[in-house]
């Protein structure tokens, strides 16, 4: 008899399973996490926010001392 017989079924959500297959700290993982934690926000807005934050971070890297 396989060991799985003793497994207690605790189904994970598809998105929890998806996260397990994505590299930690990757943009893909950040997008999935934002979707999971979106609350009342729509999925696309939650995704846009992550992308927008990443874009802002990239731009911030170019700020010169004189601009600050």
């Amino acid at each position, binding site marked *: *008899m*396989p060991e*799985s*017989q003793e*497994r207690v*079924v605790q*189904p994970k959500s*598809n*998105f929890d*399973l*998806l996260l397990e*297959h*994505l*590299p930690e700290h*990757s*943009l*893909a993982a950040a*997008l*999935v996490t934002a*979707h999971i934690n979106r609350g009342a926000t729509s*999925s*696309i807005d939650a*995704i*846009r926010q992550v*992308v927008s934050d*990443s*874009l802002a971070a*990239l*731009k911030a890297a*170019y700020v*010169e001392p*004189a601009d600050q």
Partner: protein
Amino acid sequence: MSSLRINNLTLQGFRSFGRSTQSLPLTTPIAVIQASNSQGKTSLAEAIEFLLTGEIVRRQLVASSQDEFADALRHAHLPANTPVFVEAQFLCNDGVERAVRRTLVSDYGKGRYVDCKSALEINRKPATEGDLLALGVVLSQPPLRAPVLAQHTLGYLFSAKPQERTEYFRALLEVTDLEEFRQTVARIEPELKPTDSPAWTKLSTASDVPQLALILRPFLADVPASTALNAGFDRGAAALITAADVPAPATAPERLTAVADILAARRALVFPLEAFDRKQLPPVTRPPDTTWQKLQTYLDERSKVDNETRRLTALFKEALNLPAVATATEPIDCPLCGTPDSLTPAQIAHIRARVADTKAYRRADEQAQHALASIRTSVQTLDDAVEAAAPRFLATTTADRRSKGFTVERIRQILGEDSTSDLVTPWLQKLRPLARAFLLARRRFATLHATLATLTLDTLLDLNDLRTAFAACIDAVTAFLSSLGPYDAADITLRTSLQATIDAASHVKGWQDFLDLAKDLGALRETLIDRSARTTISRELSRALAAIQTANEQVLEDKFAVLSEDVQTWWYLLRPDEPTFFAAVKPRPGTRRTIDFKAGLARGDDHSTATIRDVIAIFSQSQLHCLGLSLFLARAIHEGTKFIVLDDPVLSSDETYRAFFNTAVIERLQALGLQIIILTQDQRTLADLETRYLHLGIAAFELAIDNPLDGTIIVRTSDTLEALLERARILVRSPLRDLRKQTGSTLRDAGERFCKEMLVQQRSAAGDSDTLITDYDRQTLGVLVPLVEPLLTQDPSHPGKLRTVNRALNPASHDDGAPGSSVLKQAIDDLRDLKKRYLR
């Protein structure tokens, strides 16, 4: 917190159940309902299905023509006004019991789309399926929504088309939400793509200028520091100047100016492009009404004072200011004509009064001077603005334009004949109304200028003429302004093409872009930063999308693996140690919606090296039966069902399979906390389960049809003592001696049963968990009563009652004896009372 379960089921008029309301108490974890064929077993399973879903799936799965199920739900002999309903008392998760009732409103009709209609109520209030789900009831994907396994649903599980299996396992295998998520992310992608902004396009074009290429192209690849950008543009300007054989000025701004001059000079050699230049027309401002009111006030005050007084007022004011005049108390010499003593104090007072009379006039005169100047300024400002707002070529003479080479023919020549209809003609169409409006405005301003040039306050007679002339100018400006908009659009199109052609002909293509960018290098750098960031994030998002796609596929593979494992778990419980076994649930290669069931053919105990085949081709009917049950249980457990109904889950011909079901499967379901309702035609299954799970609590029932009008009757059989007492109660009514004798015999059995249950209960309480009723087989009431009497301690009369029962029933065991009815009735009452008081 409780787990959802059905505590009781009541039904009437549904399929084989007739006019008498039947009740099925389900307070035990396991209930077994046994019935011979055609006694209402499947009707009971379908009643639960109907209660939960409002339909029976057999119509969809089995009926060759759905007409065959017309009027199938309502019992055939049910009186017209008798309602058909199924009601369950659900003990809900919150510990509260709720009555869920579904009443048939209209039965299935003939025709595919004539479905039955029903009304759902919870605690007598109309309810929806959503309310039912809120109680914790789990309904699966169609077609098999209810946790009810019957022969037709079991067959469907393994015989359904591979494509249809997807529907059955949708909740387990569904990854549509992941695909929707990926698509949502993909929708963001175009929003991030860097667009070719005007600044980017200009930089690209400027980078193609040979003298600038090496300097500017690196900026297209990497965002430069501000200092590098400034230095690069300065070096670029110097390179252009040097290439033009012109001495480079000393400072960077001067170098840019020099580049602009060189560009203008080169362009002018081909065409005077600057003749198109024009300024924006500022908002039209008119003199406020107070300006005109001041002029009107002047005219009014002037009319009150005669001309002679107005003329002499200044002279009088000067004279009155002389000290001799101002202080005269005696006649003095006239300061104007010199006549001695000719100006008396009385005359001075008279003159002072006349001058005072002109005071308002003089104040109006002063303000009117300012108003007239203001109007002149407004007119000039407007006129200048109109002239500046017109393309320069409109404000010059034809001869001047021709001398500079600005002609329509030249424009056509530069652009080529092909461009006439696309560029020149539309431009001319918009130019003509603009030119007419411009000339009209200039004429009106010229007229107004001429009027104002000669106008003084003294010559101002009628304000209306002036206001009318001014309003005519404003109207002309408004018309000019309204024709500017359409002209601008055509002008930009024409000029852009013209400039590109001229620049190409002048070998200065990209110079203007260079100069435009140089005006605001900060803005250019922001553009480059934005583009670079967007390019980076766009690439990252593409990689994220690819990773999500791959992960989605891995999740689906995982889910198939989990499902395979779950099904396999139940399979091995049912059929352990068989060389042919269920191996996996797999998606058909290249498809997403086709599911194959795979069987393993092992050579020995090692299943890992088994040959894999499709189950349909390999499995026996018995194995397919097991597979169907395994699939059903895997899905039910995965979806969190709290109760399941199994209608003949065991093939009566399959002894081994039945044994494993009765042990391993039921124990596993018990361990998972499920309420199990089993319907079986097999007496042995009933007996086996009743004995095996007595310690857990098991309720046994029997279904039978005695009267077609009453339909299926539910009889509880697990409470043997109660069943015996009930049977005795019915028999005791008979006046016939033989039946009374039989009552006595039944009652003796009841007495023995009471004693045995008392003894088992006492031993169990003392810790003997292995004690069974069967331990006291073949022991008579006479032997048992003395053993039980000491246990009847609640009242001193109780041991005597049991002894009396034993004595009263003695005649029934002899051939010629028959207890009287009253004696039997008393014995029934005494046994019932003792049962109630002592047995749990």
